[in-house]
């Protein structure tokens, strides 16, 4: 058991219900959204998110899903529609990626500041320029400070399950914070995989109806979105900060509740694979985990003690959980599909900061790879392991582009 990631433990079991189907990732997510019974959906098409909203549109058109689906003029308007809908009491859903997420930027802050528990799937994709429609995670990592919770999923099943969990976390009165469920575009949105689709009844039991304290209502005419001056603004931000800290517990709690109802668990904040006795630990997020696990198995066969830590909750950043899981590593290598141009990269920077004031004095090196959809191969992971091994004695490079094509530079 200790050698398996928690999700793996369940995936090995035979199909437990008739809901196990081979479907497209986008369909599986759309189906999960349907099981969450959103009142209002608003989204704008952008590759590779499009299939999610097309499936939802079809479900609404077929009367399978009783939601208001608003087709709008932009992602900016899509999320803005949900501000109004959510303030009027609607469970609200959107999905986007890349340019669309960037266009939403101003609204993202607004939604979290107004404490509207909107859930959004981000089908992670690269940002222009140059224009590129393939997967990486620059889009949502770039939005790490907008006040939303961010969960990064590893496979389609987790995307499905995390979407249902997301509403329960977001709508918790102590949290009231929007969530992005981030899934790698194409790799997870367009893949056909056996997925256990959510059971509608069980989902309804798991997720209570949305009951906000205040809504726009003439019988109790409150003002939403007032203007705060320096005497109060800090406290509004502090409350958001505090809610994210509380969410560390809620994310874990909801993951456990989900396990009780549905029998699947992915770790709440973090998860690990063969990490207990690992000397070299790779830390990462998202779908690349499958490849890393294969590489780890191979390395283990060669006698190298390599393990993996998966960051599932990137916001809130699980500082304590990471300190605990990483305390015995002798070297840490962070692999991520984003780059903070002018700095290093999001996960690397956050992890270093998380460990700095702890007793952990392990060398940490970072790699960006897979930008704009470039494949991350087992060979790449082997390279990481070798570099990490060497870094135990001397760090040659603190941060590098792992898969640079030197020949075209």
């Amino acid at each position, binding site marked *: 058991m200790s050698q398996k990631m928690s999700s793996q433990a369940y995936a090995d079991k035979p199909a437990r219900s008739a809901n196990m189907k081979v479907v497209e990732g986008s369909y599986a997510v759309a189906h999960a959204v349907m099981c969450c019974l959103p*009142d*209002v959906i*608003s989204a704008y098409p952008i590759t590779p998110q499009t299939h999610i909203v097309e499936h939802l549109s079809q479900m609404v058109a077929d009367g399978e899903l009783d939601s*208001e689906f*608003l*087709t*709008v*003029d*932009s992602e*900016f*308007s*899509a999320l*803005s*529609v*949900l*501000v*109004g*809908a*959510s*303030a*009027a*009491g*609607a469970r*609200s859903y959107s999905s986007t990626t890349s340019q669309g997420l960037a266009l939403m930027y*101003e*609204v993202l802050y*607004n939604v979290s500041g*107004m404490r509207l528990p909107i859930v959004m799937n981000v089908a992670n994709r690269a940002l222009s320029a140059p224009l590129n429609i393939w997967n990486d995670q620059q889009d949502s990592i770039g939005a790490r400070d907008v006040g939303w919770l961010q969960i990064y999923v590893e496979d389609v099943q987790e995307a499905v399950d995390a979407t249902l969990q997301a509403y329960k976390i977001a709508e918790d009165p102590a949290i009231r914070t929007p969530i992005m469920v981030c899934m790698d575009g194409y790799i997870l949105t367009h893949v056909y995989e056996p997925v256990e689709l959510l059971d509608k009844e069980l989902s309804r039991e798991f997720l209570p109806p949305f009951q906000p304290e205040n809504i*726009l*209502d*003439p019988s*109790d*005419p*409150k*003002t*939403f*979105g*007032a*203007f*705060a*001056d320096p005497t*109060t603004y800090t406290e509004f931000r502090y409350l958001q900060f505090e809610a994210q800290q509380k969410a560390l517990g809620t994310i874990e709690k909801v993951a456990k509740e989900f396990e009780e109802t549905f029998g699947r668990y992915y770790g709440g904040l973090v998860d690990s694979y063969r990490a207990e006795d690992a000397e070299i630990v790779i830390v990462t997020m998202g779908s690349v985990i499958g490849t890393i696990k294969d590489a780890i198995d191979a390395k283990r066969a060669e006698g190298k003690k390599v393990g993996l830590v998966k960051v599932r909750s990137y916001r809130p950043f699980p500082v304590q959980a990471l300190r605990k899981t990483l305390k015995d590593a002798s070297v840490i290598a962070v692999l991520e599909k984003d780059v903070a141009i002018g700095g290093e990269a999001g996960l690397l920077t956050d992890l270093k900061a998380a460990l700095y004031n702890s007793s952990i004095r392990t060398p940490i090196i970072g790699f960006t790879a897979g930008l704009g959809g470039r494949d991350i191969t087992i060979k790449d992971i082997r390279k990481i392991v070798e570099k990490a091994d060497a870094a135990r004695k001397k760090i040659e490079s603190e941060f590098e582009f792992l898969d640079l094509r030197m020949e075209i530079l």
Partner: protein
Amino acid sequence: MEKSLLAPGHRACAGCAMPTTIKLVLDAAGPNTIVVSPTSCLEVTTTPFPESAWCVPWIHSLFENAAAVASGVEVMLKRKCKDTNVVVIGGDGSTFDIGMGSNSGMFERGHKILYVCYDNEAYMNTGVQRSGSTPFCAQTTTTPSGSKSLGNPRPKKDMPAIAMAHKVPYVATASVAYPVDLRRKVKAALRVNGPSYIQVNAPCITGWTFDAGTMIEVARLAVETGLWPLAEWVNGELVGVKKVRRAKPVEEYLKSQGRYRHLFKRPEGADILKQIQAMADANIAKYKLAD
């Protein structure tokens, strides 16, 4: 008059037309109304946390998305079978410029939303910069008069025509100086089963610089000169205009405000005055104001 649905204690400049406009709109719409407002003088002066001047439910999100936010509100009310008015009250900056995409989407989707623009013809909240609504040759802080400039080089954008191009079933222009007309138009708009747009001339004492107390008089002059026709369109057809029996010369209106002062000081101003008079004359002819 019923108890006002806009409370006193708001922070609008003394003599601003915006609060009077809101009062009149709310008076006609009544308490069963939800208001959505974009960022503007209205927002900062009426909702300084922890206070609000609004006695109806009110929401502000951003500068450019009020119509989209209102769409979300309206759709959720419909879902709950609630018959509540949804009214956007926003400035010309959000209406004519930055919120155009969101307005266009709302109009096109046909939501039952009344959009009221209180038009003070510039970005006042940020200190009187030009907007797409700023009239020809008016000075703002970004279209000042100078050796190479006579103020705003372009005429005002025709926002009612843009609304009508979306087949908005009810469109009207109104003025803070004509309260009976404004209230009637708000009531008519709220009866429409679809979007409606009312553009209200609402002078800004700070940006237009007129004498204390003359706010209503300035707004009235805009109508009496033919520069601001009070018109009403149903399904794109002009159904009513307020007649201006003997139109006043535009100079009377322009002279009442500091933003046009340069036209009376600089020699090139004379020609501009003729051009502005021609605009008023064109309105008078087009809307048959003088008949």
